[in-house]
């Protein structure tokens, strides 16, 4: 802790899309420990820059256009620079990134940063890109005009990084810039100053031709949407196909581990049982989602870094606008198809309160990956497999329709929210189009890894805690095994006489209208850790000793135990209910209010309840 305080802390600041993350990774090294300060989770992250025997802390702040924040992530940057952000020590200097292709906006920011009167250093990025466009940039003149050192950085090869590093560790060569404009200058005066500077250092700047050509296709009224649909399909396809082997591997590894610990004994000692079925099962159910979140974050980061995400937001803005959302709602909703937690976090970029809130409140309705095992089990057990038109599987079709239906209902809920509870704000949609750029592989990996770690920390603690609590509820009071009892039979008996079962039986009357028995109710209680726990609870209750949703004996047991209308009602319930405590915790933090969090929980529960009762009655009438 004391060593941390002795280090100089330097803020890394720049406008959005200025290549900040790339520079951060280049300076700190991808494998350096990147610590998230608690309380702000995703950002700012702090990396350590090493140089010879010295080190300093680089604080990566979210990109901003100015020091008057207009969204939550901009608040973080302004607070950190003003020294009012918890746990970020006073900053010793500012490393500003100026993007040569977007110089005017960067200089606007500089004119405000200069008023902070802190030592400053400038990294001038995208030099190669501006050269490719045929423009000439005079960095020496820029340096003399701004009064601080300007270090040109050339693209992927990282030319200039070494010089920048040397400067970082030489406080003598950091200068406090002279204020080009007084603190109370108007935006007009700042823009005018920035334009004059640009005019004196940049010659022959042209719009990027490659970007214009790509936009003609990707933003075309027809081809643009075709491309959009193809890209989205590819993303969904890759989330599942790329992460499936890893997820299966993790699943398998953890079940082997559990098997190793409890062995063949019918009634393992309490401590071993706790280790295997309380802790390891809990850790396993967190880690099994990590690959999917990683793949999703790689793809989302690819779309963001390439410049496409801003275009996608433009394409869907009017459509989402019909439902009271906006183009920037798109990333949170898309991410929520893997997990609502990164989805809700990425809503920070939405500047208007009502749109941000509506986006966060419907994000958990999107079909996250934890629902998939429940869907797979029930669909495989209750939807007869037929080929429709020779190639379409009836089961796949039902699954796909659940995914689409979730989005449609989410949009309808957003529509209702924006006309009832969240009317107090207007639409604020604007987004800058960066030039198209080839994302850097390392960047994608580093950012996806950080997001994945963040998920494991956020969701992990909660899932693990609930998993241990559920284990305790299911393991007490202790039951003695009868002679000649198999391990499965014993576990079933233990569970049936546990506090958990008593709890399930107590709550079951609440679910009487859709005929959920106490088994299903117990499954729903278990799902508060993570929805897929439903599958393993069923496995234990039906004594098949498997928590694999594609396991045929489990499928047969479920088929035997559940009436089809009940099974479909369970599906409907899982579509809507906000059972995931990790999501509840993230909602609480990001909305900053219990009121909205409780509201989200209740509205989704009511929706789930009505859907389950309706589904039960309709399928019951149809099938009898």
């Amino acid at each position, binding site marked *: 802790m004391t060593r941390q305080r002795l280090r100089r802390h330097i803020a890394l600041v720049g406008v959005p899309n200025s290549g900040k993350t790339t520079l951060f990774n280049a300076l700190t090294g991808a494998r350096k420990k990147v610590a998230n300060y608690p309380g702000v989770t995703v950002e700012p992250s702090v990396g350590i820059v090493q140089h010879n025997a010295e080190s300093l802390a680089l604080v990566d702040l979210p990109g901003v256009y100015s020091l008057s924040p207009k969204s939550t992530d901009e608040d973080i940057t302004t607070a950190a620079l003003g020294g009012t952000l918890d746990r970020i020590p006073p900053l010793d200097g500012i490393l500003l990134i100026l993007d040569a292709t977007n110089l005017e906006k960067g200089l606007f920011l500089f004119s405000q940063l200069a008023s902070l009167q802190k030592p400053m250093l400038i990294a001038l990025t995208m030099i190669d890109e501006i050269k490719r466009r045929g423009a000439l940039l005079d960095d020496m003149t820029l340096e003399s005009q701004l009064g601080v050192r300007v270090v040109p950085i050339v693209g992927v090869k990282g030319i200039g990084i070494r010089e920048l590093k040397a400067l970082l560790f030489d406080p003598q060569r950091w200068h406090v810039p002279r204020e080009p404009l007084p603190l109370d200058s108007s935006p007009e005066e700042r823009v005018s100053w920035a334009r004059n500077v640009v005019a004196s250092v940049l010659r022959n700047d042209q719009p990027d031709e490659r970007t214009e050509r790509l936009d003609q296709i990707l933003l075309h009224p027809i081809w643009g949407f075709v491309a959009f649909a193809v890209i989205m399909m590819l993303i969904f396809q890759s989330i599942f196909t790329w992460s499936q082997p890893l997820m299966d591997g993790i699943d398998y590894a953890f079940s082997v581990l559990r098997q190793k610990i409890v062995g063949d004994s019918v009634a393992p000692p309490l401590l071993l049982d706790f280790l295997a079925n309380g802790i390891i099962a809990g850790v396993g159910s967190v880690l099994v989602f990590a690959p999917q979140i990683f793949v999703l974050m790689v793809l989302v980061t690819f779309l963001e870094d390439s410049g496409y995400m801003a275009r996608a937001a*433009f394409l869907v*803005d009017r459509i989402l606008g019909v439902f009271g959302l906006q183009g920037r709602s798109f990333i949170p909703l898309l991410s929520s198809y893997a997990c609502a937690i990164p989805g809700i976090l990425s809503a920070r970029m939405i500047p208007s309160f009502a749109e941000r809130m509506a986006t966060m409140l419907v994000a958990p309705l999107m079909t996250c990956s934890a629902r998939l095992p429940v869907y797979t089990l029930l669909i495989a057990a209750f939807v007869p497999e037929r080929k429709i038109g020779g190639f379409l599987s009836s089961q796949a079709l039902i699954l796909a329709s659940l995914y689409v239906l979730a989005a449609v209902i989410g949009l309808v809920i957003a529509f209702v929210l924006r006309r009832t509870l969240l009317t107090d704000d207007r639409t*604020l949609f604007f987004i800058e189009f960066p030039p198209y750029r080839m994302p850097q592989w390392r960047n994608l990996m580093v950012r996806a890894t950080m997001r994945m770690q963040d998920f494991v920390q956020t969701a992990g603690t909660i899932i693990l805690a609930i998993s241990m609590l559920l284990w305790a509820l299911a393991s007490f009071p202790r039951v003695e095994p009868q002679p000649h009892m198999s391990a499965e039979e014993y576990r079933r008996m233990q569970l049936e006489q546990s506090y958990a079962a008593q709890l399930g039986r107590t709550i079951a009357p609440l679910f009487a209208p859709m005929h959920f028995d106490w088994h299903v109710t117990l499954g729903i209680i278990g799902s508060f850790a993570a929805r897929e726990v439903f599958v393993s609870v069923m496995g234990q209750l039906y004594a098949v000793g498997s928590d694999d949703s594609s396991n045929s004996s489990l499928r047969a047991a479920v088929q035997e135990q559940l009436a089809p209308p009940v099974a479909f009602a369970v599906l409907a319930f899982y579509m809507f209910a906000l059972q995931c405590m990790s999501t509840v915790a993230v909602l609480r933090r990001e909305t900053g209010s219990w009121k909205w969090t409780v509201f989200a929980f209740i509205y989704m529960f009511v929706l789930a309840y009505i859907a389950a009762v309706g589904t039960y009655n309709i399928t019951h009438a149809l099938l009898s």
Partner: protein
Amino acid sequence: MLSLDALPCGISARVVSIEGMPSVVERMKELGLVEGTIVSVVRRSLFGGTVQLRYGSSTLAVRLPDTVAFYVESVHHTQQVALPEVHAA
């Protein structure tokens, strides 16, 4: 004076005034869309409303007029008036 959402695609015009929530107007100015800036609509989204603007070497998508309203005038009327240079050509 013309509202920017009525400006045909590809025609350059000069921003005369910006109206909307003060914080949004301020953000537009911070992005360089100040009075006097020459701006053109590159394209509109399929259902209208959201437009892609070009000014200087910047490109911005914005939903008009819900987010903010820009009023513009033809570039040709007042060509004599000296403007802050955006970029040296």
